[in-house]
């Protein structure tokens, strides 16, 4: 068990969202899109170093800019 940010996750890896380190606006927005603590997410890919990260949460695909992806932490099995 290890806690990493979405940026550090590897493509194809899955994990459980632990904490979202952001202001209320960002947390509410992700919350409403289905990315909330306790949710299982799979990283689909990241575009370029420092580019956006795309994750799959349930049946939704969500793109997060690099700055924000750095602040979403997930627990992975490793």
């Amino acid at each position: 068990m290890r806690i990493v940010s979405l940026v550090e996750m590897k493509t194809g890896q899955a994990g459980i969202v632990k904490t979202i380190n952001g202001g209320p606006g960002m947390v509410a927005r992700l919350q409403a899109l289905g990315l909330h603590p306790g949710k299982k997410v799979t990283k689909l890919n990241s575009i370029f170093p420092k580019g956006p990260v795309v994750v799959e949460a349930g049946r939704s695909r969500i793109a997060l800019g690099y700055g924000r992806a750095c602040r979403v932490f997930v627990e992975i099995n490793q």
Partner: protein
Amino acid sequence: MLPKIVLVGNPNVGKSVLFSQLTGTRVVISNYPGTTVEFTSGRLKIGREVFELVDAPGTYSLEPTCRAEEVAASLVNTADIVVNVVDATNLERNLYLTSQLLEKKVPMVVVLNMIDEAAQKGIEISTSRLKKLLGVPVVSTVALSGEGLKKLVVTLPHAVVGGNEILSPDERWAWVGNVVGKVQQIIHRHQTWLEALELASLKPLTGIPLAAAVLFLSFKIIIGLGEMLHEGLEEYVFEPFYLPIVDFLSLRLGQEGFWHDLLIGTLVQGEIHLEESMGVLTTGVFVVFGIVLPFLVMFYLVLGFLEDCGYLPRLAVITDRMMHRLGLHGFAVIPMILGFGCNVPAVMAARNLESRRERFLACTLLSITVPCAAQMSMVFGLVGRYGGVYLAVIFATLFFIWITLGLLLDRILPGYTPSLIMEIPPYRWPHLKSQGQKLVMRLSHFLAEAVPFIFGGILLINLLYILGTTDFLAVFFAPVIKGLLGLPREAVSTLLVGFLRKDVAVAMLIPLDLSARQFVVGAIVLVTYFPCAATFVILTKELGLKGMAAAAAIMVLTSLSAGTFLNLFLDTVFSPGSLAILLIGLAIVFVTLGGGTSDRRENAAEIKLLAGKKSDF
């Protein structure tokens, strides 16, 4: 006051389709989040009762995070009946909003839309169980084909108040998880090729070539087919059928005089010239129907396809990195692309950007550097006489301004742009009927908006000319126009008309007998110096008077410097080809070395945040 039914749901779940099916009103339907910003309303008759039906902007939550969502949340508070449209292919995420709506204690019906697509994806949902768990009627529909709509209409009067207690977000998700577990079954299926393409378009190795190919093809189709259509119309419609009519009219009017000048314009070497005569019935009609419309049809055909299949959000992901360096993020690519059609809907789409800073940046950049289809089709039509390489100069200059201005503004404007959070919809096959409807709607918008302004612009210019005002202005502005830009003094009337319509203004460059350099300078100045009247109105609404004044100052400055630069260097120091390459190269160097102010500020804010201080983002 009619009783009000409000359609509420996540973005991109088919509310607008449902709305147009129920009311017969056309609304724009697209496969990307955030098409409806302001709401549309129409009437719906059930039995003998008439209701007002409102299509609210899509929202993920009733705790708003942007303008569109604010509008949606406030509409819910005024509703007599709420119709919650739910995407059956993504029940879980959609039910979060449902749970918030149930807490509102307003009579409600849940519509389970796109039930056909869900079935294709192997998702089975039990409507009866869902109905029992939610405590409100549930109707499954396929809004595009009209399936289930009759049932929805008869169910509406039976809307009831659901019974949810007010929950915290975590409790809501727990409730959603519980409901989904009880009503939904997923049969595993193999990946379809469309789904494989979905992944490919998001990966850099395949995504970037794909994006380049898509943009190149779109451009080719618009220019190639638009040109064909334009030439066809001119050869087979305007010359054999329309020209004799205006010729006849011209003879009847005696080939001169006030009315002749106004309607037909001036004769070029004793003959009517559809492009150059500058009368309402000659240039006015020909610019609208003969030149602009053919390109506009092609542009909106291509755009409609890209929108409905769901490609644009992927383009936003691919371009996010570059847009970040300009203090924007990937989503801002969508208003930019819309702007190549018309700047008005583009400014409206920019409202969906999160912060005021981003909206100002996006709106200013877009109104300065993105020429609309009407303007562009005129430039394409005219630049041919000088050689296509000058077109490259025009585009390279605009690209250069876009990048440098973006970098500068990002540095000057205080604060930072928070990075992207965006849902990426699945690819869908565009629906032919709604594509057709959308095209017709957009073209009629164009005609309704453009025709009065084009005719008005030509009238104004002819009147000013007759009154002698043009001469006065020409003398007054000569130092700028002649001195800095190297254009003939008469070009002042072109700039005047540009305030109303850019396409006619470009057409007015023809009789001036410009050199290639002058034409390029004129085109660049016309694109950048000020938005057309329609864009100006919407931009002022968006930025406020102060913001608009700031934007206008930026526009005039940019325009004069770009015009002066080109006047000094094009064809004198640099050949058009090398100038185009130089400008693009410089822009790329600038963006690689100079960008990212907003990113650094976001990082600093993040460190502050982690240190426990409060921040807004």
